[in-house]
């Protein structure tokens, strides 16, 4: 890892080196040993005496009226304890992250293939499965509304939600829209200023988060009439906020505890089995566990919005961008989920990390009878990046310029303004990141005389011995925001307790942060060590007994909840020092905690923390609110909308079997500025994992939807990259501190997922000479057999 700071700025990395396992080190995960021993309790591993298994009946139709539901035969099956429909819901019947438009169980109609209609609790999962099959539903099947043309003409094709049903941000079948105009916008006069104009229509398929741990959890009815829910989620408090009203109980009677989470990537931001398990537990008075099978998982969570995009760029002969125009149409599917925020991202980030004097943009999300789409790693910035980066390559070709040089010529930097008018007030090393991936050594050239077929396109299938294989190289760079935007106060809470246990000072960190695999708990312990000068840190289980930690999404947790832990630990340190001042009358103003002691820079060790604390505990809770943002103006898109920006650049090297249309990514290089790497091992792991999901989108991953029906809800048919598909991923990490962020850090997880896809497609274009305006690129796109 390379580390550098901007001249004249304080090097935040040099401060506080008291503990080797503090920030900047790479101590091992506290849950690592449990995980390698098979003893870590994931949500699907939970067990309770007398527990029942819950299961849902899901619609086989994307759009239909429900004429009747007959549960009588299902109820007769021995071992069945309850069968519920929407009529059995005691509280409100709708929920949703931003717009409460989704029924907990379908009411009179279904709007997507896989929508839950009824739920069953039984003593064995097979009994539940059989009971589900015995529920008789009479449908009036309707023609689904699935295309942009159909969605935008509701008077002809119908409404996904009737206009009177609820209030959305849009109208008709438009869920949300955002326009943006910057400079002079895009007019004939502006167009006339450009020497060269390139344009294109681009398309991104529907990607799935495909976390390995299926949606699951256990609801246990409590004696006080409330409910304890153990669940794999990304945000405990917003789950509670959505579930409690449906159960008809006050929020404080619904207690959530995080169960082990097997990955998330945005797919657990919405509810899945939470309400269903609780309703069944409430009705039967017994604990109820629900575990989705993989096919149900594909139906049970939202996906990445598929996008259709038009981009147009004008530039001068020497490569300076003059204007950019874009329209991005996102298919949000049946229910809103996070569509409004995804639209905001697509519109505000959709022209990339470039200085463009004149900009126009319109982004919309549609309601349709396709599967619902919402949060997935990259969140609206991924789709756009494929559009604008393809355009950059097209423009470079048109101008006869090097594609990296063209990007660098137009790259934004600190002090420049986004098209939203927001000035970037921390490092934005876009040109440097590109230079770094360009300067990395290339892998050895394809050597046909000495090959291992396993390393070629087709790999173990042994489809080529090198004949027809052509190499290509491509570049890209992308921009992503960190944290929730547009006026949202996604604060985080942390509680830190310091006391003496077994003769040693021990810190306990308690937050509601969802550890989904990213390593947040490792970082929390590092922060506590650094701030409190202790070695021993315990992490309290995440639950709703402490305040919200916001969502594990938007690359925000280290920034937000890590920040909260920092501030709570600082408060504890100050309280301990104040205690010492009171007891010993210290007048030094150079006190800190280090190595289990209170230390004065001038006078040395003053007292051990053990002696100062005695039998007392210091237990303090702090909230961390990021700087305020504002919603973008609906028509102009102007506003200080984002908390922080993050950038990643990639270089992809690919081998393409041009006869069979098979692609082997040979190497995928990344350079990213992370501000400050709190845990370098985890930072690199995040970047490599993020690049790999981008590789999946580039050449493999798509949920195939035909007439509203999902055709590949399994890992047999929805392919995610295996270890044979993924190449070495060299990572170059820059650390240019952001003065606005805790420790100067910058969110890490999403930027590589935004930026890496277009580099791979650019490399395939370089190898084949094909236009490739759609991802994922499939063999038939390369062989012309489509």
């Amino acid at each position, binding site marked *: 890892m390379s580390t550098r700071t901007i001249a004249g700025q304080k090097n935040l990395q040099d401060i506080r080196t008291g503990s080797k396992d503090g920030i900047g080190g*790479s101590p*091992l*995960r506290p*849950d*690592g*040993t449990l*995980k*390698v*021993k*098979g*003893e*870590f*309790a*994931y949500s*699907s*591993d939970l*067990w309770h005496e007398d527990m029942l298994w819950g299961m849902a009946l899901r619609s086989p139709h994307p759009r239909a009226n429900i004429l009747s539901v007959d549960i009588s035969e299902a109820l007769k099956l021995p071992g069945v304890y309850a069968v519920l429909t929407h009529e059995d819901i005691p509280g409100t019947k709708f929920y949703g992250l931003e717009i409460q438009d989704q029924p907990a169980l379908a009411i009179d109609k279904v709007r997507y293939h896989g929508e839950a209609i009824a739920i069953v609790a039984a003593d*064995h999962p*097979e009994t539940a499965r059989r009971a589900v099959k015995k529920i008789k539903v009479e449908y009036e099947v309707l023609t689904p509304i699935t295309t942009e043309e159909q969605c935008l003409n509701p008077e002809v094709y119908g409404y996904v939600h009737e206009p009177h049903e609820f209030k959305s941000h849009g109208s008709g079948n438009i869920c949300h829209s955002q326009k943006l105009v910057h400079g002079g916008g895009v007019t004939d006069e502006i167009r006339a200023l450009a020497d060269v104009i390139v344009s294109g229509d681009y398309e991104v398929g529907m990607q799935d988060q*495909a*976390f*390995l*741990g*299926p949606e699951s959890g256990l609801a246990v009815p409590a004696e006080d009439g409330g409910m304890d829910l153990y669940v794999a989620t990304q945000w405990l408090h917003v789950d509670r906020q959505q579930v409690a009203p449906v159960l008809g109980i006050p929020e404080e009677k619904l207690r959530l505890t995080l169960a*082990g*989470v*097997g*990955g*998330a*990537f945005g797919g657990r931001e919405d509810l899945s089995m939470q309400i269903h398990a609780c309703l069944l537990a409430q009705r039967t008075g017994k604990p109820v566990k629900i*575990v989705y*099978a*993989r096919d149900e998982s594909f139906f049970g969570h939202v996906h990445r919005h598929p996008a259709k995009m038009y981009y147009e760029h004008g530039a001068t002969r020497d490569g300076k961008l003059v204007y950019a125009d874009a329209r991005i149409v996102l298919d949000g599917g049946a229910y809103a989920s996070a569509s409004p925020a995804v639209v905001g991202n697509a519109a505000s980030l959709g022209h990339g990390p470039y200085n463009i004097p004149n900009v126009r943009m319109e982004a919309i999300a549609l309601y349709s009878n396709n599967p619902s789409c919402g949060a997935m790693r990259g969140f609206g910035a991924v789709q756009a990046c494929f559009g604008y980066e393809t355009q950059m390559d097209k423009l470079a070709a048109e101008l006869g310029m090097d594609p990296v040089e063209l990007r660098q010529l137009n790259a934004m930097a600190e002090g420049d303004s986004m098209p939203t008018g927001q000035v970037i007030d921390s490092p934005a090393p876009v040109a440097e990141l590109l230079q770094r991936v360009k300067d990395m050594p290339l892998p050895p050239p394809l050597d046909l005389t000495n090959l*291992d077929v*396993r*390393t070629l396109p087709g*790999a*173990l299938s042994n489809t080529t011995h090198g004949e027809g294989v052509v190499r290509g190289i491509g570049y890209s760079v992308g921009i992503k925001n960190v944290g929730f935007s547009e006026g949202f106060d996604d604060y985080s809470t942390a509680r830190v307790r310091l006391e003496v246990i077994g003769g040693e000072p021990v810190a306990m960190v308690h937050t509601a942060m969802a550890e*989904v*695999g990213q*390593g947040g708990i490792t970082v929390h312990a590092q922060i506590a060590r650094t701030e409190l000068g202790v070695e021993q840190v315990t992490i309290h289980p995440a639950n709703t007994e402490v305040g919200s930690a916001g969502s594990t999404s938007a690359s925000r947790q280290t920034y937000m909840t890590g920040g909260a832990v920092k501030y709570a630990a600082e408060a504890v340190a100050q309280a301990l020092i104040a205690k010492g001042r009171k007891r010993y009358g210290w007048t030094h103003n150079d006190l800190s905690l280090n190595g289990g002691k209170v230390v004065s820079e001038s006078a040395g060790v003053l007292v051990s923390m053990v002696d100062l604390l005695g039998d007392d505990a210091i237990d303090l809770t702090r909230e961390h609110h990021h700087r305020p943002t504002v919603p973008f103006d609906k028509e102009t898109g102007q506003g200080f909308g984002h908390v922080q920006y993050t950038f990643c650049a990639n270089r992809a090297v690919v081998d393409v079997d041009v006869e069979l249309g098979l692609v082997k990514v040979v190497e995928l290089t990344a350079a990213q500025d992370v501000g400050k790497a709190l845990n370098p*091992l*985890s930072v*690199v*792991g995040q970047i*490599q*994992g*993020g*690049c*790999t999901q981008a590789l999946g989108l580039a050449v493999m991953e798509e949920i195939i939807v035909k007439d509203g029906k999902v055709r590949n809800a*399994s*890992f*047999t048919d929805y392919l*995610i990259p*295996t*270890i*044979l598909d*993924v190449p*070495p*991923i060299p990572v170059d990490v820059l650390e240019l501190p952001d003065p606005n962020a805790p420790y100067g850090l910058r969110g890490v997880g999403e930027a590589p997922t935004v930026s890496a896809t277009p580099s791979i497609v650019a490399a395939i274009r370089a190898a084949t000479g094909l236009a490739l305006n759609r991802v994922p690129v499939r063999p038939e796109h390369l062989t012309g057999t489509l």
Partner: protein
Amino acid sequence: MRVTFTANGKPVEADDVWEGESLLYVLRERVGLPGSKNACEQGECGSCTVYLDDVPVCSCLVAAGQVQDREVRTVEGLADESGLDPVQQAFIDAGAVQCGFCTPGLLVQTHDLLEREPQPSDTDIREALSGNLCRCTGYEKIMDAVRLASARKCQKVGTSE
């Protein structure tokens, strides 16, 4: 039906097993060994990989009745009294564990690879682990972990000789 077999060296017995149950279900829900994971239950992801009579299998694809009187070794059986298996320790040390859901299957598959081939090439590793999906790491740290485990195991053998 009743199924009796050996799990991690100990005799186990499961009663009232439905004929359609998989070995994975019996391990996870009936004999208290939930370490093997249920990510796809159709043999695509490898997260349920266990040894069946010393051969790695996807336990979701093995009918419970097929293990009668046979030996099963799961992720819970890799460590012994002296501590973690070198493969387990290497996965922790190399940062190959993020969410960890793929880890149990990868550990068993890697354990088997290094038993058969103590010093695999990178391509050998990729081939051997190509049936185990991981969604978090991008596999780079997993490659590091296998190389590390291989080096440590060879060193250990070298020292004891």
